[in-house]
């Protein structure tokens, strides 16, 4: 193992890590807003990847162009899921914690089943996107272009999100609702509307990630499952609810995965991520950046 290989894999790990951050940030946003873990988050990603795929297959729209469309579609989807399902799960009188876990969990299973039924379990891919399969060399390190662009999109999305939360009315309403939903209602902010927009925003972010992922990853009904687990680890590492913890968590996960792949057989690369999750929560039960 030479220094070049190590730098090479750390560089690709960093790129993947930024994408993991983008996949996970919607989850963190929703959790921070209303203390609900969306166990269907991976399936949101899967859906976004299929939407990207079908836009390409039927209308020949390149993933790079369709990304905003996918994000917009996912925004609507996320808001609808909140209004139709999650809103009612929050009203449960008994077992509220379990109801929330199992409602979104049931939604995940349902979406996976529907995808198998309508899209078949076949693996699909977008073979001829503009960026697909291209690499670029930076000082002797070869980087795949789709991942590189994905990482840039992720950085841009995090920047926009930061601006959005700090500078816009809705962003402030989001922060305020996160702080104290009861007080917010007193000053005339409709909690349900903020929650619906929060779900829309969370889904739009994972939609963006899905469009990027579709450029270089296979698309199949179970694709969300493995990424979802990584997303939970990412969010937990950052401390549930911390949007910028998800950013840091994503980078850590990407680097840990790349390092594990250097040491262990490739089929075990996820073990490193899972082990780091356990290690972190055993030492800090609220994640690295989570507040107690």
């Amino acid at each position, binding site marked *: 193992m030479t220094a070049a290989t190590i730098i090479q894999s750390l560089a690709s790990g960093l790129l993947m890590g930024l994408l993991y951050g983008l996949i996970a940030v919607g989850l963190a946003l929703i*959790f921070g807003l209303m203390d609900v*873990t969306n166990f269907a988050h991976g399936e949101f990603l899967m859906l976004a990847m299929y939407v990207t795929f079908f836009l390409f297959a039927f209308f020949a729209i390149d993933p790079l162009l369709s990304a905003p469309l996918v994000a917009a579609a996912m925004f609507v989807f996320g808001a609808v899921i909140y209004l139709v*399902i999650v809103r*009612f*799960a929050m009203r*449960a*009188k*008994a*077992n*509220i*914690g*379990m*109801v929330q*876990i*199992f*409602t979104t*969990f*049931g*939604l*995940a*299973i*349902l*979406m*996976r*089943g*529907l*995808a*198998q*039924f309508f899209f078949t*379990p076949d693996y699909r891919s977008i073979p001829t996107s503009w960026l697909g399969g291209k690499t670029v060399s930076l000082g002797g390190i070869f980087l795949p272009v789709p991942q590189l662009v994905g990482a840039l999109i992720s950085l841009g999305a995090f920047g926009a999100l930061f601006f959005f939360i700090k500078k816009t009315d809705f962003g402030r309403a989001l922060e305020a609702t996160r702080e104290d939903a009861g007080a917010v209602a007193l000053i005339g902010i409709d909690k349900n509307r903020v929650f619906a927009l929060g779900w829309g925003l969370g889904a739009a972010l994972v939609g963006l990630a899905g469009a990027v992922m579709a450029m270089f990853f296979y698309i199949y*009904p179970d694709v969300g*499952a493995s990424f979802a*687990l990584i997303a*939970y*680890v990412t969010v*937990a590492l950052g401390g*549930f609810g911390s949007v910028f913890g998800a950013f840091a968590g994503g980078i850590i996960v990407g680097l840990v995965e790349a390092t594990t792949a250097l040491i262990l*057989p490739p*089929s*075990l690369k*996820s*073990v490193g991520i*899972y*082990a780091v*999750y*356990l290690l972190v*929560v*055993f030492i800090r*039960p*609220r*994640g690295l950046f989570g507040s107690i």
Partner: protein
Amino acid sequence: MDTSFAQRRRRDLIVAACLAAIATLVPLFVKDVYVQNIMVLTLMYAALSQSWNILGGYCGQISLGHALYFGLGAYTTTLLFTKFGVLPWFGMLGGGLISALIALALGYPCFRLRGHYFVIATIVIAEIAYLLFLNWDWAGAALGIDVPVRGDSWATFQFTRSKLPFYYFALVFCCVAWLVTWWLEDSKWGYWWRAVKDNPDAAESLGVVVFNSKMGAAAVSAFLTAIGGAFYAQFVSYIDPESVMSFHFSLLMALPAVLGGIGTLWGPVLGAVILIPLTELTRSFMGGSGRGVDLILYGAVIVLISLARPEGLIGLFSRRRKGVAR
């Protein structure tokens, strides 16, 4: 303790005895192998879900990683039998003990975690074990292990011609899991668990040993789950990580309890009796192309039940069984 609780417990016992007697006689009238197969699976999942319910329902620690213990039971039995010729009965017991010990070892760090952190930890731990078994050549890796045929007998717990012995074992297993739960409900632990579930901080302050009672629940739950895994390995006589340790099993163990009524004595049985035949029948009627239909069914059922009947289907019965009188 008030008398209504004691009466309810006596009535539960009588109902259970009647149901068990009926279940014993059913195979005399049902000769169809396909139906018998579904009945075996239903009893097995009822027992597994009952075991899951001890930790997930009574103690309120939602585990979505019980496939780990199921797989450990299956692998211990099968490996001991194929590599060392140890009879499955000892393997079953050994698998149970190993699982209970591992549950204690894992519980030590995990029970500090709360809510989502705990759930994700259980998934992640089972996933690590799954990946390790997938890469463990001595244990068959991804190819899995065929249980060698040694002829039908109770000693080797192999029956190729008839499903009845498996049916009766599953019935006994189900009854044992039910009885253990029944007994625990009224034990010191049962009260502790409900206290821990309702409000761990208050329980702690009242002198309930929160940590130890969680550990006890985990050990009992894991032991019984591993027995189920060992049984399943004998029943299907072939195991690989996908078929005994995948996330699917963790889900299938939790579902009947969630559907029937989490943290209730009859919930897992009711849930399994509805869910397992429904899935098996859907699967065979929709044929191979209908892959995914079982998932659609599970998913829709979980969402609907969670929203409409958070206390489970058991809540539909007129007399509400609300655990213990508070």
